[in-house]
């Protein structure tokens, strides 16, 4: 009798990149909502509906003395007696930090799951990177890659991940600038103090964040029966259940309570929380994350539900 779950090998980064591109191709470009970053100085592609540094024409306005002569739009000025200056729309890019957990517990995959959690997390991360970079956002990965505003950010991220040490613990968000977005993809099983140690301080500094919790269906439904020895892939700790089916109900209750607690805490801090199971398609999580990032307001979801 084969066991239900197994630990998989580490996913090849470039392989994950290819899959991520397939997923990303299913979604439109994502302009991260950047209400909060109105005053960020770094140029980008977000039209800010005000004049500033940018490439798109915004308005003509009369020349004010003291302005650089080079800014005069001579073609327009030639039409009447006034001098005009061509204003451009202020465009600003956004920095989004992506992070995926790669700890041993993420390597778990049960029979009914499509892929391991780690593989799914990587795919989600790279797909997000692809979508965001397509829109001109700056994409970075804490501890792995500084933010870049390049069209091939996903590829560079995959390359960086391939060379970087395995990310096991939650990242240090202290280095991240205030007006950035953070997307954390993990199973959040490692420690219960995630909220206090990692997310809490970051949110207090004003960092917006999105949590994608990836779980295996076997972890949620607990299909084990009979005499079963459970082993923690990270600590190697063992636990024997005489008749596993007897604890299934309790376990499910505890599992859901934990997720609920995590979700509640995250939302209270203003971050979004998304639970994803590996027996679902990656595109589902991607679409949901896309929605959160592009600021589809919670009100709309409420109207739908």
């Amino acid at each position, binding site marked *: *009798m*084969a*066991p*239900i*779950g*197994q*630990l998989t090998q580490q996913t090849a980064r470039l392989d994950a990149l290819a899959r991520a591109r397939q997923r990303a191709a299913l979604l439109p470009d994502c302009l991260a909502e950047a209400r909060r970053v109105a005053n960020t100085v770094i140029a980008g592609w977000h039209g800010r509906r005000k004049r500033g540094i940018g490439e798109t024409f915004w308005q003509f306005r009369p020349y004010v003395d003291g302005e650089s002569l080079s800014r005069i739009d001579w073609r327009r000025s030639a039409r009447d007696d006034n001098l005009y200056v061509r204003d451009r729309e202020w465009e600003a890019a956004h920095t989004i930090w992506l992070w995926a957990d790669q700890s041993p*517990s*993420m390597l*778990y995959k049960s*029979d*009914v799951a499509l892929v391991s959690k780690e593989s799914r997390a990587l795919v989600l991360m790279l797909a997000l990177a692809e979508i965001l970079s397509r829109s001109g956002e700056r994409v970075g990965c804490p501890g792995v890659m500084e933010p870049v505003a390049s069209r091939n950010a996903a590829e560079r991220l995959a390359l960086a991940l391939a060379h970087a040490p395995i990310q096991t613990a939650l990242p240090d968000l202290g280095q991240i600038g205030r007006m950035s977005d953070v997307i954390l993809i993990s*199973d959040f*099983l490692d420690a*219960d103090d995630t909220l206090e140690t990692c997310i809490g301080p970051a949110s207090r500094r004003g960092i917006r964040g999105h949590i994608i919790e990836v779980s*295996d269906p076997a*972890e949620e*439904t607990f*299909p*084990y*029966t*009979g*005499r*079963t*020895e*459970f*082993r*923690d*892939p*990270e*600590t190697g*700790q063992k*636990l*024997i*259940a*005489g*008749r*596993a*089916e*007897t*604890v299934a109900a*309790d*376990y499910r209750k*505890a*599992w859901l309570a*934990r997720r609920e607690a995590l979700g509640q805490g995250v939302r209270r801090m203003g971050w979004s929380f998304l639970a994803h199971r590996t027996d679902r398609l990656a595109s589902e999580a991607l679409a949901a994350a896309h929605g959160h990032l592009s600021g589809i307001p919670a009100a709309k979801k409420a109207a739908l539900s």
Partner: protein
Amino acid sequence: MIAGIPLAFGAPAILFGLLALPVIWWLLRLTPPRPQAEPFAPLAILARVLKAEETPSRSPWWLTLLRLLIAGLVILALAEPVLNPRDRALSSNGPLALVIDNGWATAPDWQARTEAAETLIAEAEDLDIPVSIVFTANRRHDATPTSFERARDQLRAAKPQPLRPERSASVTALIAALGQTRPGTIAYISDGIDTPDATDAFSRLSALEASAIRIIGADDTNALALTGADNGAEELSVTASRLNSTDAASYGLTASDGKGREIAAGEIRFDTGEAEATGTISTPFEIRNDIARLDVTGIDTAGSVRLLDDSFRRRRVALISGEARDIAQPLLSPLYYINRALSPFADLIEADSEEMSVSIPKLLEQSPAVVVMSDIGTLPEDVSQSLNEWIERGGTLIRFAGPRLAAAPGNDELLPVLLRKGERELGGALSWIEPQPLANYPATGPFAGLPTPRDITVRRQVLAEPSADLAARTWASLADGTPLVTAADRGAGRIVLFHVTAEASWSNLPISGHFVDMLRRVVQLSRAVSGGGEAGSGILPPWRLLDANGALLPASGDAKPLDLTDRTAVVQAGPDNPPGLYGGEDGFVALNLFSADETLAPIAIPEFEAPVTRSAITGDSTVDFRPWLFAAALFALLVDTLIVLLLNGAFRRKTFKQASAAAPALFIVGLSLAMFTAPGTVRAQDAQPGDVDLLESLDRTRLAYVITGDEEADRTSQAGLDSLSNYLFSRTALEPGTAIGVDLETAPLSLYPLIYWPMSEDADTPSPEAISRLDAYMKNGGSVLFDTRDRIVDLGGGSSALTVRLQQILAGLDIPPLEPVPADHVLTKSFFLLDTFPGRYSDGPLWVEATPETNDPAERPARTGDGVSSILITGNDMAAAWALDDQGFPMFSTIPADPWQREYAYRAGVNIVMYMLTGNYKADQVHIPALLERLGQ
């Protein structure tokens, strides 16, 4: 052996192993099953939940119990428990007297019987007592108490005999051999069948005052004996008797011929509680005459075999009458009574020609055993000669008197005695003598033993000239001493003369049942002409003898010749004359173990003073528990495996995932179940090429035409018949399929009700085989519509090439007389009312089989047409009139061009098809009003 229960252990020491069970219990309780290892990331959550649950480290008590049960079963099985262990209760007070039946019924299980005897001898060997052994069916007995080695040799030398046991004689021999010694144990291995001397034998055995009596195998025999075979008129009936009559049973019968080939089979069925039954073998007379031996399938004993000889065969009897048979008044026909008397037990052939010089040689060619001539005075010289030769070869000629014989010269050599010319009338107006009854039969004649009938009177007879040997030749005479039946042997044959007629005009003998008996005796005396030899009488040497297993072996040993000189004595099979065939290859007499009235009865064993132990022949009742216990242990082991699988969740997991780990286990279980189920029936593959076409033609009625080879004609036929089929489809209840062309040489014709055959000059002449096929088709009910397509008017005088061709074809067919369709023929009424049958031409007639004229045509609107005319001939080119092209336009114009003529051509076609399909039903339809009137409606 445990008191009260007939249970014993072969190796009781192993039972101490049961003491180990508590240890096994303790060990089993300690060892939990190995857990299933699973990686599980959210272990922290699980750990919180799992704290409350106690992990069982021990298997459940009932599982342990099951395993203990397995261990216990294995220990018990190793201890070799046996139910009904064989008794070892020989008395050591004196020698063992072993009486063994080795009659015919012991053959099938002789091996088991000798084994039972061996066991007894072995026990005697253990006790070191002498053994006196006697076989009841043997002729010579050597019952001297001897050592067990000699007894064993005697036992090995003994064989079952194809005889009844002679118990009294063997007990006598035993008593004589024992002398004054009192036997310790008398063991009797019986075949269970009663014999007349059994009671006597038992009483004398009981007088020996043995210490113990053992009766072995008296109760469970299934002996079966064939006691008779009777060759009836229609079938061969076989009677059988069986010993064990509790259940209904059915046995197969096989009949084989003289060379041992199986030629017939039958069945004999015993009802519940019936010890006797009669089975039948129904085969033609010729085959039945070849039967030389009957066997019961699956039982090979001398009693279940019935040997048959010549006397068993049905005789072939030729009947010749002097006068033409008058069918209208059969009761006056002389052959009528003979026919009725002989037909139950003889095969009758009659002359088919009035001319005796033709018919008698023809009858003699069929080599009858008996020729019956009724009132024939003189025969042609050559016929008389051939009859004489036939009698010399062994034929029996039975003659009946009559006016012609009375008028013939009395020195006919085909008469047993010289006859006076003229007949003698008794009790007439000019006679003083009363009609005479029969006298008692002579004691030596063939009629000896028949009761003398008192109610038969003879009014007329022919008289024999007195001679010295007249009395010797007389088989029956009247009360006044004049002979009624005389006979004389000629060579191997015999001439028998009844001095009265074969019908009731001279005496009332032919209408009495006595006549049947007399004729039967005479016919039984006759023998097959081909077989010469001395069979049936005299002293016959043994030729082939049955052994106990029912096999016919060349005679050997001490069989004595069979003495049949004394006809009154009933010959019984016995030690001197074992059952078998006596005589020689040319002729033989079968001697069977059982005669017709014998039955099998179970042997009655009286009470003995000594304790009697009864048992079956072998240790059949000994039940060895070992395999059962091992099987139970194995089953429990399987159950245990399933339970362990179940505990480990092998089956519950199935609800979670589709590809279950239990699937292979289920597959194995299913496979083992499949191995236990009986193999499915295998159907013979009887499909043959062409079946699809056949079925297609069978599903739908189809009109057919002959493929002539002339393409134009074939196309016209196809189009014409298709159009006619459409017309039928739209107008009638018949929904024919598309027309089909048949090749007369190969195609199966019987599928089609009507075949249209247009004549064509370009066509090939059909081969004789094709014509012969067509002939068979027509004789079997098919009809052919010939169409010369040349406007013939007169069939015979036709001169066109097509008509000539038709004549060529018809020359090869068996054609009845033809006539143009008369006005009252069914064809004119079968669907439409028609008076002509036009085609493309309108004036040619349609020829059909001539129907016989009825006496009063006025009364019947249509002729009775039993059967349908198998041939129709027209010259009107019907297919051309029917044929429509693809657009539905006529392909040919009618001559003259009259649209109504085409319509009538269709109607003619419909009438023809309806006539073919419905036949005389349509003819009978016209009587419906009359029938209804007769029914009173």
